[in-house]
């Protein structure tokens, strides 16, 4: 069924109005996808994480096959804020849906500076803080792996950015719930989870790792049960909206995340292999809501047994 009017899918994340709960995951979306899918129908547009200053990513090879998923060690290359505003933002704005800018940094002040700059740009409707970046001040540990550091970071962003702030959580922690609670209490409008799981690949022909720097992130359906569990767990401890992600490939997967407590869902790796996945899920969720006489797909959110 192809439906033009997705009347049962709209939602609010803070002051952010979304036509539907299906978003691209940062790092897995770009203007190039426009030739394969209808990007104007997405709930929001989320470009790849930008840094304040230009930065190179990791050496190749950067991607590798894994069972039911992929490894990446791309390393978030970014041409910096200036390049984003001068050369890229227009492409994203012309797509139509609200723009959520994902920001990264190597120290807290980078994030804060980005938040301050982006606050001035009316077209930027929200920011997502990518806290899975190595914190140089803390010996390279992911900045989002410690609740205290994360709270300081989020608090500073919220003070400088008056629109919705989404904190994207790393799963590479002892308790993702503690981190989610810290994000909520420091003023996050929503949390998104999960980022990729730390992983490596080993080439059986030698001792060399599959990807350029060895350390990689695992994504794809292989991580879906873990992501679902984390969404389910976090939902029991916070009351702000959750954007769930991790291996979602179809409507059934998306529904599972909503049942576990997610208000919205993001599609990452599936965009690489099936570029029209997001549109199929939007169609599928609307059909589900119609067939089950729901007023809105949100009616089943968290309705897990």
């Amino acid at each position: 069924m192809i439906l033009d009017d997705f009347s049962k899918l709209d939602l609010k994340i803070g002051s952010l109005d979304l036509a539907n709960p299906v978003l691209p995951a940062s790092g897995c979306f770009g203007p190039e996808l426009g030739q394969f899918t209808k990007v104007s129908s997405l709930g929001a547009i989320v470009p790849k994480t930008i840094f304040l200053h230009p930065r190179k990513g990791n050496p190749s090879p950067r991607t590798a096959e894994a069972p039911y998923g992929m490894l990446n060690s791309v390393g978030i290359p970014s041409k910096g804020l200036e390049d984003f505003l001068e050369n890229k933002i227009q492409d994203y704005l012309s797509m139509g849906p609200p723009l959520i800018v994902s920001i990264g940094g190597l120290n807290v002040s980078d994030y804060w500076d980005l938040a301050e700059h982006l606050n001035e740009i009316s077209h930027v409707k929200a920011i997502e803080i990518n806290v899975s970046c190595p914190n140089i001040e803390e010996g390279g540990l992911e900045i989002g792996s410690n609740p205290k550091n994360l709270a300081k970071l989020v608090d500073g962003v919220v003070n400088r950015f008056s629109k919705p702030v989404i904190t994207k959580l790393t799963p590479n922690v002892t308790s993702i719930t503690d981190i989610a609670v810290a994000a909520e209490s420091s003023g996050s409008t929503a949390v998104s989870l999960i980022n990729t799981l730390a992983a490596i690949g080993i080439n059986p022909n030698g001792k060399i790792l599959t990807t350029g720097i060895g350390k990689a992130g695992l994504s794809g359906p292989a991580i879906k049960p873990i992501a679902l569990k984390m969404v389910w767990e976090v939902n029991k401890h916070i009351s702000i909206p959750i954007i769930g992600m991790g291996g979602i490939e179809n409507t059934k997967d998306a529904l599972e995340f909503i049942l576990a407590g997610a208000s919205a869902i993001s599609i990452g790796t599936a965009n690489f292999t099936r570029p029209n996945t997001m549109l199929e899920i939007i169609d599928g969720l609307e059909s589900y809501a119609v067939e089950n006489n729901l007023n809105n797909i949100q009616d089943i959110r968290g309705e897990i047994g």
Partner: protein
Amino acid sequence: MTGEHKLEIISSDQVAMGVFRIVFQSAELAYESKPGQFLMVDCNIGQGSNESVFLRRPLAVHRVDVEKEQISILFQVVGKGTLALSKATAGDLIDVIGPLGRPIEIDSSVENIVFVSGGLGIASLTSLIDVAVGRNLKVTLLAGARNSYRLYPSQLLPRGVTEMTATDDGSAGIRAPVTHLVSQVQEKTDIIYACGPLPMLKALSEMAVDGTLTVNTIGLLESQMACGLGICKGCVVDTDLGDKLICLDGPAFDLREIRWESQFSPV
């Protein structure tokens, strides 16, 4: 136009040791595909496979037959993706995205052209060779492989190609890296197109930098790719002009511009 296509396999055969050729029927791709372009191929064929291949595999458009409205791919079995593909047979449907990558145009001033192929590099070069032969250029192919069994069969090349071979074990042509043949032909050459393993391309790069190779040399680079569309940023190549993506900016690069020292850690 570039998009997702379900293609029917017309034939699949083994043309050299571990080297397979699959021919597809597709009017659209036969008309649209240009030399240098590639497809992102879903290697999950039929319902029979018990181990799924998650990522698509980037495979060059090997040859185009506009008259028959067919295109082909050529690949060596190196992992589970290509192994699954090698088992495909006529009648199977394969899902591909393409054509992708920047087409290669041979400059109209070129009269003498040399192709350097290492191993399966020939897969990407053949459609360009076909164009060059069709234009009545003087075409030389320097083909290297581990041994004679792995060489692309000469009888499959278009007529009019002068072929010189090199193998690691001397079972065909000279016993040396294929790059050793370049000095014999470069004097009368306007341009070189090369495709093959990274050490081969690196050797040509070094020859270009140290002055042994004076002809403009274009390398067709290959890489693992998750999407082939420019989104995953997986296929980066460090060049004098900054970071480039093989899928969007390539596959053809001037070999002198590649910064090998900060690139391509060994696999």
